[in-house]
Structures are given as C-alpha cells and as structure tokens.
C-alpha cells in the first residue's frame, strides 16, 4: 500500500473530517483492506462494500467475542471491549448461547407496547428542550439539544431520579470525550456508568417502578433470570448504547438537513414522511461508523481475501451505506428513497436492540426541531465543523445554529 493516494489515511484527523473520500476509495479499490490500527499498531482489516459488510455481520465465523477469539497482538493492545470489568460479558460482546439468553431477557423489556409508552416521555423531553433552545436563540445542537434530549430520555426510561440526570450527562461526556486529550479519562467514565447502573439496580430492587430497570430486574424466562452482574452490565450497556448514539445521530441528521434544505422543507411540511426520513438519515450519515470489532474464529476467505483465524475485522457501516452498487445516487439525501435497507442499525445477531426506540426518538427529535424552527440556520462556518476522533462513533463536536424566527 505505498501508492500515492489522494485520500486521507484511515483514522487520521483529516479522515475524521471527511471519512467518505477514504472509504469510497477503499470500497472501489481494496474492499477488504489490510491496515494497522493506530492504537497498538495492530494488524487489522476494514470491509467497505455493502454486500460484504452485510455478509460478515450475518456470519457466525465473525465473532463479537474478542475476549475469546482475538489474537495476542489485539489482546495485548488492550482493544478487548470491557476487558476486566463486568462489561466483558455484556450483550454486545458475547456469542451464542450466552448472547441468545441475554438478548431474550433484554428484548422482553422492549415490547411494542412499552416502546409506545415511551413516546410520551420522548415528546415531553423534546418539547421542554425546544423551549429552552428557543429562549437561547442561538444554541448548540449537540450540547443544548441532542445531548439534553438523549440523556434525559434515557435517564427517565431507566428510572434515574431527575437530580442524577446531570451526573449521567457528565459521565457520558467522560466516556465519549470530544477532545482526544481526554482519552485517558474514558475508563473512569465507563466505571462511573457501571456504578450508576449498580446503584440503579439496587434501588429498583427495593422500590420497583414501571421503568426499564425494574422490568429488567424482574425479567425472567422460565427459571432463568439475569444475575446481579449481568443486570448491572445490561443497564450500563443500555446507557452506553442508547444515549450518545442518539445524540450523534440527531446531530448528523440536523446537519444533513441543513445541507439539503429542500429535504428539510419537505419533512417539516409533512410529518408523515418522518419514518422514511429517519431511515434515509440513518443511511446517509449514521451515528456508528462501524460495528464493534469482529474476530475470525477460523481462517475465512472474504471477497477473495484470506483472513487468518483470530483476525480483527472492522465492518464499515458508513461505507456500506454509501455503496453505489446498492443505493442509487448514494451521496444524496432523499427522504422518500424506496427500498432503503441500510445497515445504520447493524445487521445479524447483534442488530440494534433499541431500534424501535432509536427510530421513534430520532423522528420526534429531528422532525420536531425543523417544525419548531423552520428557518434554522448554521451559526458557524460550514468548513469548520469537526468530528470527535473515535473510530466507531461519528459525532459532531459542536453544531451551533440560529433559530431564525422567520415570519
């Protein structure tokens, strides 16, 4: 790979500003690309074509359980998610049969009925936050809107007392920093979230309510229940998987609509287009750039490339969702796009468990913002918009907007 390339190297600062140039080049020329991961200089592969990404996410030979299958280089670099903590056995990083058991128990709490009940919580939180933003006039979509809504909703759904919401926001900021200089704080952030989850579980055991934590405490399949550690890990996983993702998604969606004002007008005029718009926005610039690491459990050939057993592989969701072989005119936002089976919420065994909530919350938060402020405009230079430097999460750092009152 020494040929001069017009695109930025993977996971460089320029890459984070515009990953699509690099990913597009790889998709065309080197769809299963070998490279060295910046943390620990670990040998890895990144997969960028839609068909290949979907196939690997559906293939049991690509394990999510890096603690069990990864080679020594990967493990020594400390890349195993949750290593040494209760998150080591979290739903996101285990294979069947452990995964099946956790997923059944968790999914039993996400009934369509319960998700419908959360609609009120989401609407109320969005309305109250829009009110605060209106009072500010100019506000940051990331910190003043999306962050407040996503952590507020998650806090309420899980049954956090309101006076602890602010702590949760701070812990999340620590676990998912915007500033690379704060990376060493990440384990402490994860630790805080685990300890909030533990407090919450203990509290709901004593005083059960109608919240998700209480439901998880009581969830059972025949004689099977979640153990204490599993419960805490599950609640922590919900906090980690279900708040900053929404925040990042809302930010990306708002920017996409500011960049495509015709589509924003279309959406604001017809809330009926909301569901399709959310699918398109999840496709166009979703919140997760990639799934968590997958590890080959044996030697596997993928699209002509041979991957040795124990190899770490990155499934590049962003790249797959812009594959011209799958989507017509993939770099355009079209909220009425038909047959939009994107991979923004993942695929296969580990596909997003909170998908119904994510779609509903995205719809209410993104649609609500443009209906409330039909003349919303960017309050910074478009070229200055920056992204956090995280290989898996695509989140804008700051997105100041002006709620131009219009008529």
């Amino acid at each position, binding site marked *: 790979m020494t040929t001069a390339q017009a695109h930025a190297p993977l996971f460089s600062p320029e890459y984070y500003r515009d990953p699509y140039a690099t990913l597009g080049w790889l998709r065309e020329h080197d769809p299963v690309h070998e490279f060295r991961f910046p943390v620990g200089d670990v040998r890895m592969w990144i997969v960028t074509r839609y*068909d290949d990404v*979907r*196939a690997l*996410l*559906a*293939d*049991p030979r690509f394990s999510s359980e890096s603690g069990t299958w990864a080679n020594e280089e990967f493990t020594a670099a400390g890349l195993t998610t949750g290593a040494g903590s209760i998150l080591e056995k979290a739903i996101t990083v285990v294979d*069947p049969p452990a995964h*099946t058991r956790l*997923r*059944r128990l968790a*999914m*039993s709490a*996400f*009934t*369509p009925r319960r998700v419908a009940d959360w609609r009120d919580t989401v609407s109320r939180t969005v309305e109250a936050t829009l009110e605060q933003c209106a009072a500010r006039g100019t506000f940051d979509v990331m910190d003043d809107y999306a962050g407040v809504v996503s952590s507020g909703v998650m806090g309420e759904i899980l049954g956090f007392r309101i006076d602890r919401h602010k702590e949760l926001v701070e812990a999340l900021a620590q676990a998912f920093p915007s500033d690379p200089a704060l990376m060493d704080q990440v384990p402490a952030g994860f630790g805080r979230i685990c300890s909030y989850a533990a407090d919450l579980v203990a509290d709901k055991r004593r005083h059960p309510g109608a919240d998700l934590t209480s439901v998880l405490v009581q969830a059972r*399949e025949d004689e099977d229940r979640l153990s204490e550690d599993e419960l805490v890990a599950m609640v922590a996983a919900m906090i980690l998987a279900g708040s900053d993702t929404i925040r990042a998604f809302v930010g990306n969606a708002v920017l996409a609509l500011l960049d495509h004002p015709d589509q924003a007008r279309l959406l604001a005029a017809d809330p009926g287009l909301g569901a399709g718009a959310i699918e398109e926005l999840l496709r166009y610039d979703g919140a997760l750039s990639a799934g968590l690491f997958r590890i080959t459990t044996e030697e596997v050939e993928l699209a002509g490339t041979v991957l040795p057993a124990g190899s770490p592989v990155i499934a590049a969701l962003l790249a797959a969702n812009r594959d011209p072989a799958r989507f017509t005119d993939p770099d355009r936002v079209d909220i009425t796009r038909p047959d939009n*089976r994107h991979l923004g*919420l*993942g*695929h*296969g*065994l580990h*596909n*997003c*468990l909170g*998908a*119904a909530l994510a779609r509903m919350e995205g719809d209410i938060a993104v649609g609500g913002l443009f209906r409330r402020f039909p003349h919303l405009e960017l309050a910074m230079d478009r070229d200055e918009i920056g992204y956090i430097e995280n290989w898996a999460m695509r989140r804008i750092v700051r997105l100041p907007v002006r709620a131009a009152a219009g008529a």
Partner: protein
Amino acid sequence: MSSGSFSVDRELCRGTGLCQAMVPALFGRTDSGYPAADTGELADERSVVLADEVAECCPTGAIEVFRHDPVHE
C-alpha cells in the same frame, strides 16, 4: 405430524438477518436478510424451542410460533 409452526409478519419484519443468523435451518439463508419463507413447519420439539428463542430475540416482534399440543389432539 409436526410439533408446531411459525409465521413471519412481513409488515413488521425489517430484514435484520437475525433469525437466519440464529437458525438458518428454519429461516433460510437469503442474501437480503429477510427470512426465506413467511411460514414454516416445526418438525420436532427442539425446533419449536429454537423458533421460540428466535421470536424472542427478533427486534420487531415479527415472528409468531404456534405449538401443536399433542395431548389435546
């Protein structure tokens, strides 16, 4: 005589590929991720249990499993 059957609600299904990743023998292996068929027979008790597990993991609640109760037949 089979032990049960399942059906998939196409209106709800999102083609996540979870069902076929879990039990390809029942839900088929399609490139699209959508199950191969809308309905299927479950030959034995083991298949009923497996289908039940999948139904409980499906993110959209699209799968329904019917158990043919041998005692009352």
